[in-house]
């Protein structure tokens, strides 16, 4: 679907604005084109069409320019691309993959991003995320679905002290508010 001619106002599930406190910056992510690609047999064709090799190694991501492919399962990838790709990429992917059994589903609006960065990011996330987040255990480029207290998220480490959270839209305010609460706590410490 192309969003090129849309006139209706777009409304993000998060009304919050970016801010820094106690060494941690929270930023609501900008709109992205998000595609779920399923089907291991389609991966090879997708590598070329997407422009970044889809990671075959569990829990890893690959990026090329502003595009990123996150491994979510052995035959499941979350493809992220700038919104400007919305007009062309889904169609070009679909035609490139036509010969391989697969499923390509647009989930651009299903979820939204929360960007968390700064020196205190690991203990902040570890208030709710049960995974070890040291760089040794969760290196830059690692991405996985996991639990955030009572919500499910995709957690992707984009830098030494930077994480990108993907969360379903109705859970986004919950995740944001909890992050905000613990950010205040840790700043007071």
């Amino acid at each position: 679907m192309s969003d090129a001619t849309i006139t209706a106002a777009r409304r993000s599930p998060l009304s919050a604005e970016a801010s820094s406190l106690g060494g941690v910056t929270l930023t609501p992510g900008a709109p992205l084109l998000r595609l779920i690609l399923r089907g291991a047999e389609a991966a090879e064709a997708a590598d070329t069409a997407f422009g970044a090799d889809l990671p075959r190694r569990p829990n890893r991501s690959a990026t090329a320019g502003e595009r990123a492919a996150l491994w979510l399962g052995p035959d499941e990838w979350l493809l992220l691309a700038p919104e400007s790709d919305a007009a062309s990429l889904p169609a070009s992917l679909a035609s490139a993959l036509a010969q391989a059994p697969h499923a390509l589903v647009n989930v651009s609006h299903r979820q939204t991003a929360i960007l968390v960065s700064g020196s205190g990011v690991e203990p902040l996330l570890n208030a709710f995320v049960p995974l070890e987040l040291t760089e040794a255990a969760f290196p830059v480029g690692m991405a996985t679905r996991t639990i955030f207290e009572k919500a499910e998220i995709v957690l992707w480490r984009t830098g030494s002290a930077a994480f990108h959270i993907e969360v379903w839209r109705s859970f986004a305010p919950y995740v944001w508010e909890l992050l905000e609460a613990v950010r205040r706590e840790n700043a007071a410490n």
Partner: protein
Amino acid sequence: MLLIRCPVCEMDRPELEFRYGGEAHIARPLDPSKVSDEEWADFLYFRTNPKGLHVERWRHTAGCGRFFNAVRHTVTDRFVTTYKSGEPRPDLEALARKLESAR
């Protein structure tokens, strides 16, 4: 909270990410219309429920999303092994012997 090795992610991951799926290797009859009520009840409801090694299904719901199988000791809750769906059921007696000798 248990730590479970997901054979797909090839990582130890916290129990919170998983959903238990009951006893493993209970195959749905290929043609259910051919089985008797007794056999169907057995498939639906009757389980081994052992006190000891249990072969069971888990799904890494908040992870890779895959179902896989595990052998867990139901008294200690210790996982002996996990393996991908579709792989053969391990020899429990051999596993038990291995456990015994490792003690």
